[in-house]
């Protein structure tokens, strides 16, 4: 018989719940923060006390020429607003409108609504009664219009600040494909996604995160495709975040990942718009964060970290080749130095005789054991890599040449390292650059060092055990419920068509089942199975020679 344990709830938690139940709705409202009062001077004084001491906060006072003129003040932050929008659609509209004697103009009880409905010509206006959203709106680039005798503020969307243009993503370049990356403006980024997917089911849910920064975060998904459980889970994890500031999407990534202590990222980071769009169409969810071009995509599997957006832009035979080379490079970047050490130290008999003689010849006279030699070289490469990233681009290239070529060549000539070691380390470094995801490339770099040590101590046996240990660890990782090693384990035959091999596009009739999409079938294909589609390519259908799907 299985026992069921019920964890006792802490007393403090119970007390809080009791207090919450006993509270009246009025009390609940009061807890949301202070509210505006129907006294313009008092409202201005309050705002000045909270944010007015900053030079960039502008209080523009004016009079609205109604039958009984009304004093008003427009509050905004200089630099965050579009000056033209304020001048033309708020100030000009409010001071020069016709119909000052109209019936609505005499109705003072609904002044805010009437001004919103009849005067303001700006595209987005809302009414707020509490200070917290008003202040947040002002600090987000919106303008607050306060009126004499009104305990409500009109919030006008006047956002407009200096922004970087849409540029080619620097971290994920591609030979073929759109040269469009995200920038630091959230609205621009969501607009880009919408420009790509003109589907009414595209949802952009806004959340504010960061107590101090009040950063805008957008949860983007296709309602008719993404699994509602996934969307709910992502949203719940985001809403649970209690953080002081969100400076970059990495801040959120650490909070929402399934295994925050794992070396492997379980959320994909990208600045490519097309990548986000493709993910949404597969039933995934994207999180865009204001002030950063890096979007988060979830769920993700280990293998998908090695997929590039470009894989889908070439013809399928080329894509297969590219992807296989990339997986081979992954193997090299992780294991090559460790296997070399294991073979050289413990099992030289495994190396073909002629090659073994050559290697022994080149290592003749080198002062360090093979493990230390590899370790020194790997550390040198890591230092060079870090230096070249931190320096300005022209210097970075110089450092690369000086370090990689001159230093390596000199070290070989001086007999400090063997030429074979230079080849091994260079091949490893180049292989690690093939990883499309920066996060997984770093993971491989971190894992390479303990594997080298294991290769030295335990040889191929040690490496086998280490690999098994790594697999055990990876098998335990889930990304929003999706097993990290799928579709390989647990095996999912349908999803294998986009794994080592990239199947022809017309055979990909189903979206990846791992994400458990609501709408499994991609539009435009009538075949029931991929093999049906495989033997009925578009060319046959075009000629009318093939079977009707």
């Amino acid at each position, binding site marked *: *018989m*299985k*026992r069921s344990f019920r964890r006792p709830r802490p007393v403090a938690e119970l007390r809080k719940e009791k207090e919450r139940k006993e509270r009246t709705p009025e009390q609940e409202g009061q807890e949301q923060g202070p509210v505006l009062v129907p006294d313009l001077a008092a409202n201005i004084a309050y705002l000045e006390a909270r944010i007015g001491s900053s030079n960039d906060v502008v209080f523009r006072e004016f009079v609205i020429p109604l039958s009984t003129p009304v004093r008003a003040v427009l509050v905004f932050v200089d630099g965050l607003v579009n000056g033209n929008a304020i001048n033309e659609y708020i100030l000009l509209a409010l001071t020069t409108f016709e119909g000052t004697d109209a019936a609505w103009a005499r109705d003072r009880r609904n002044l805010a609504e009437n001004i919103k409905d009849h005067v303001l010509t700006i595209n987005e206006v809302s009414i707020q009664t509490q200070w917290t959203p008003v202040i947040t709106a002002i600090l987000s680039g919106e303008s607050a219009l306060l009126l004499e005798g009104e305990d409500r503020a009109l919030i006008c969307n006047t956002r407009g600040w200096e922004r970087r243009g849409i540029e080619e993503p620097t971290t994920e370049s591609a030979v073929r494909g759109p040269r469009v990356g995200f920038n630091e403006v959230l609205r621009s980024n969501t607009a880009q996604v919408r420009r790509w997917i003109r589907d009414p089911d595209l949802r952009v849910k806004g959340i504010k995160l960061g107590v101090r920064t009040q950063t805008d975060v957008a949860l983007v998904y296709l309602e008719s495709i993404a699994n509602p459980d996934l969307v709910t889970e992502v949203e719940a994890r985001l809403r649970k975040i209690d953080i002081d500031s969100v400076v970059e999407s990495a801040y959120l990534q650490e909070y929402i990942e399934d295994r925050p202590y794992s070396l492997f990222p379980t959320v994909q980071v990208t600045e490519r718009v097309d990548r986000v769009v493709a993910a949404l169409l597969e039933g995934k969810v994207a999180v865009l964060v204001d002030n950063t071009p890096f979007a988060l995509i979830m769920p993700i599997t280990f293998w998908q970290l090695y997929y590039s957006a470009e894989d889908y832009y070439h013809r399928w035979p080329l894509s297969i080749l590219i992807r296989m080379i990339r997986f081979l490079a992954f193997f090299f970047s992780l294991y090559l130095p460790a296997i070399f050490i294991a073979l050289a130290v*413990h*099992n030289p*008999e*495994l*190396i*073909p*005789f002629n*090659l073994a003689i050559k290697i022994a010849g080149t290592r003749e006279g080198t002062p360090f054991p093979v493990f230390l030699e590899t370790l020194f070289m790997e550390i040198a490469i890591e230092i060079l890599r870090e230096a070249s990233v931190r320096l300005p681009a022209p210097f970075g290239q110089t450092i690369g040449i000086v370090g990689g070529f001159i230093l390596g060549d000199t070290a070989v000539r001086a007999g400090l390292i063997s030429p074979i070691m230079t080849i091994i380390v260079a091949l490893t470094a180049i292989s690690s650059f093939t990883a499309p995801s920066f996060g997984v490339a770093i993971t491989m770099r971190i894992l390479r060092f303990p594997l080298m040590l294991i290769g030295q101590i*335990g*040889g*191929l*046996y*040690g490496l*086998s*055990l280490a690999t*098994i*240990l790594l*697999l*055990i660890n990876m*098998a*335990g990782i889930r990304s929003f419920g999706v*097993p990290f*090693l799928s579709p*390989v*384990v*647990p*095996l999912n035959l349908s999803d294998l068509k986009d794994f080592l091999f990239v199947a022809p596009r017309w055979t990909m009739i189903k979206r990846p089942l791992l994400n458990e999409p609501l709408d499994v079938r991609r539009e435009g294909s009538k075949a029931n199975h991929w093999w049906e589609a495989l033997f009925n390519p578009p060319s046959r259908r075009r000629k009318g020679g093939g079977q009707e799907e």
Partner: protein
Amino acid sequence: MSGNERFLSSRQITLLILGFAIGGGILTLPSLAAEVLGASGWLLVLALGLLYMGSAWIAARLAAKFPEETIIEYSPRLLGKGFGLLFNLVFIVHLFLVIPVNIRILQELVNISLLPGAPVWFVSGSYLLVLAYGATRPVDQIAQVNELLIEIALLIGLFVALTAFQHFEPLHLRPLLSRDQINLDKIEQLIGMTFSFGSIPVVNMVVPYIRQPWQVTKATLKASLVITMVYSFFTATTIGVFGYKETIELSWVALELAKSVNAQAVILERLDLVLIVSWISALFTTGLIACYLVGAALGRLFRVRKEAAFIWGLAPVAYYLSTKLKNYFVWSQASFYVAVLSLVITFLGYPLLYLLSLVKGKHRV
């Protein structure tokens, strides 16, 4: 067990049974088969496999009758408290003894090829640590690791067997069932062979985690069939390559088979080492599943949720026992005892429990 915890597919069950069976036993199976039935040894393996398939069917039917429980929970109700406890203890001891034998086989393999002269504490100790760590993971994680490792090992094993076909002599498999070659009095070898087949307990221990319990019989039979085919094919290949007399003489006949292959492994000089490296994963799956089953069985027996405590607690005992199996003869003797226990459970325990479940089925079991 709530329905939410059912996460193993029937394919994973098949592979778990395969992963538990295919490991160290296959390395010596052809020698034992050749000793008993000479050139027709592969026929003996086939017959044994079919026999075990029958028992697997019974075990799977039994498991399907109790989809919410493991054998540890329902055996006392069927056999009575005393006999039930005795059966459970035999069941757990049988599973536990697989671990030291498994560790020792690995130690031997590593010492004769990859790391000659490496100390026992290093090879066995590190292996046992990884085994114990893996066995403390949730069952779906274990199933995933097993799924990957056993497939890789089987593919490489199949590659070696197929490559060795270049030396295959059909004449080595003849004459079929010659009286001169049949030694049915070699009971020890005959029983020792069953060590490779004893993977049925898996199904009775993991059935509460299977997503579709009604598919358990199909999955078990599929696994038994694959095991039988793999063993028969491998034994036939080995006897076909070496002849039955030479097969009997070879201790690690599978490694000799790999050595017989002339093709260089692209950039590596020796193919047998590649087989050993890959076969570590096959051995690991056996040890991993055995460790997990022992922990799970003890957890169910003592109604304790922290199964990891049993696994870590028994790890030093397994290590100690593995060090006692000093050479090939000692560990083959140990595997003989494991096989005896396996035979008792398989051909006595399961049929009896199944019959009792049918008899008592009218009443509430």
